[in-house]
């Protein structure tokens, strides 16, 4: 029997606001424990929440970027449960009236485009951090993180494989980062993913029983966990058993999922409208204003690059991995007029340099102007492509412009036919055996002569000229 997986993903993304969702404490990551808290996010007696307007703005942005309907009115609800990292004993979230609903994202898969529905996007507050002591039965709580704003993005169960899930995650990730509303750091916890997984026999419409997967803290782990879980459920069904609806935790070291069932009880969250917060009314004008301010999104940008710059999809993909990189590329294209050449230099050399040093493109010592100038120098024939490889490395190391480096190192390409002919003559004279063999029919030795001329000119000879000259002169 063949089974199809049915997967839905729930993503929690921390928003890059300066202050928390309901109080003015800073949202900075990595601060000393319990130093970014106030009476409000600590849930002390008598405190009240007041909504950070920017959180609404960012959530609308995400809703628009994923083609959701932005509800004219939404409101907050309390999700009641007890846990030490939840100071008030309830989380302020949205339940019956979320901000955005019924959107989608398109995935670029090998087989083509696939649309994944987004059920809803809503605002809520984050909880604190609980750390367990290995040596004694204690847990320690750092409440810095309570009140950091989150958006929860719930997908429709449209995902049909671990690969698709990965692609969906990457799509959402790049959109969030492009919008500048989330830094998308899974390791630091600013981008989290839970999954609902079930399988059903091929052709069956009804969904199977699903398990909820948690504790997958990297893209790779999400894929591994899903692959494992699909297999696990398949094994159960093939053995005639039934899949239990439960929450399972991904165990990274063991490579398996563990049931939480014995410790977990069905949560009764007793949702009810939060009486301390008033409704959020979002006007058409506000939505339009935000819509106008949206940056070009990655998918659209990639399509435009392919169309306008005539570069292949692969290049477009690499060049749009970040907004900053895409902007860098476009600037170089503007200044040099050579989209494909620019792409090659950025993908081949610039990215290699900055990745080695783990630098961001915004900190690259080679400015778009400098790169464009170098490209122009190649186009003019001042240096060869080969020499340029040296030059660009030097540009990166020193931050100096290409022209200065070429002059300093005397790397100007030799284009004087006469001078080159002289070199060719000398090379021919220095290698009589190879010359004889070549004239005798060993065509392969052409490359040898090219190499020798290049060596003699320290790589500065214009390759095209060398080719032409050698062809003429070797022939005799």
């Amino acid at each position, binding site marked *: 029997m063949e089974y199809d997986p049915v997967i839905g993903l729930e993503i929690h993304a921390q928003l890059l606001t300066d*202050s928390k969702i309901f109080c*003015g*404490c800073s949202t900075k990551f990595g601060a*000393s424990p319990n130093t970014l808290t*106030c009476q409000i996010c600590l849930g002390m007696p008598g405190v009240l929440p*007041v909504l950070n307007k920017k959180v609404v703005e960012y959530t609308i942005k995400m809703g628009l970027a994923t083609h959701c309907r932005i509800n004219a009115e939404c409101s907050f609800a309390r999700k009641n449960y007890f846990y030490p990292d939840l100071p008030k004993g309830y989380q302020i979230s949205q339940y019956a009236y979320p901000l955005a609903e019924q959107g989608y994202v398109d995935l670029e898969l090998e087989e083509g485009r696939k649309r994944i529905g987004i059920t809803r996007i809503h605002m809520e507050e984050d909880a604190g951090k609980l750390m367990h002591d290995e040596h004694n039965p204690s847990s320690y*709580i750092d409440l810095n993180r309570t009140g950091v704003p989150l958006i929860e993005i719930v997908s429709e169960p449209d995902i049909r494989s671990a690969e698709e899930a990965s692609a969906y995650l990457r799509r959402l990730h790049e959109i969030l980062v492009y919008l500048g509303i989330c830094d998308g750091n899974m390791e630091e916890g600013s981008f989290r993913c839970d999954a609902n997984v079930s399988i059903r026999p091929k052709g069956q419409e009804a969904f199977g029983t699903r398990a909820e997967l948690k504790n997958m803290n990297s893209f790779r782990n999400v894929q591994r966990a899903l692959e494992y879980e699909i297999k696990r459920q398949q094994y159960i069904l093939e053995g005639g058993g039934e899949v239990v609806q439960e929450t399972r935790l991904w165990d990274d070291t063991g490579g398996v999922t563990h049931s939480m069932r014995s410790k977990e009880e069905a949560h009764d969250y007793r949702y009810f409208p939060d009486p301390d917060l008033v409704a959020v009314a979002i006007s058409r004008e506000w939505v339009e204003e935000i819509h106008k301010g949206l940056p070009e999104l990655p998918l659209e940008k990639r399509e435009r690059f392919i169309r306008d710059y005539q570069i292949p999809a692969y290049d477009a993909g690499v060049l749009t991995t970040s907004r900053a990189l895409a902007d860098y590329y476009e600037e170089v294209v503007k200044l040099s007029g050579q989209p494909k050449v620019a792409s090659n230099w950025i993908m081949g050399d610039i990215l290699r340099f900055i990745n080695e040093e783990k630098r961001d493109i915004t900190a690259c010592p080679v400015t778009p102007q400098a790169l464009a100038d170098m490209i122009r120098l190649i186009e003019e024939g001042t240096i060869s492509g080969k020499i340029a490889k040296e030059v660009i490395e030097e540009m990166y190391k020193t931050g100096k412009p290409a022209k200065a480096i070429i002059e300093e190192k005397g790397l100007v390409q030799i284009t004087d036919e006469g001078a080159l002919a002289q070199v060719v003559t000398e090379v021919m004279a220095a290698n009589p055996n190879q010359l004889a063999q070549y004239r005798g029919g060993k065509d392969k030795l052409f490359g040898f002569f090219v190499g020798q001329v290049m060596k003699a000119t320290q790589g500065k000879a214009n390759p095209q000229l060398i080719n032409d000259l050698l062809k003429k002169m070797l022939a005799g």
Partner: protein
Amino acid sequence: MRLAAEASYVVRIWIFLENIRRKVLKIQKDEVTHVAHLARLEFTEAETEKFTAQLNNILIYMDMLNRADTTGVEPMTHAIAQKNAFREDLVKESLSREATLANAPDARGDFFRVPKVIE
């Protein structure tokens, strides 16, 4: 007769009759125990019995709400309906760690400590 006493008398008769009519309690002891667990409270046998009886009386009294016609009525969640109470995204000074931990029943170093959560 004082209103409170008379009203309470009437309520008691009503509850008695309702109980007979229903032949069943509105809330049983095991449900009371479950609700207590949800609320992180624990009671002795005697307390649970007492609570069950008291809650029953109260819940039976609540049934009178069913007589009110609420078709098409929006639930009233706020005394005064308002919208868009916002604040700007500005950082304000937090409490010092000392102040944050000052009331903690068990603070260890920089943290609040609790008995271990059994995961």
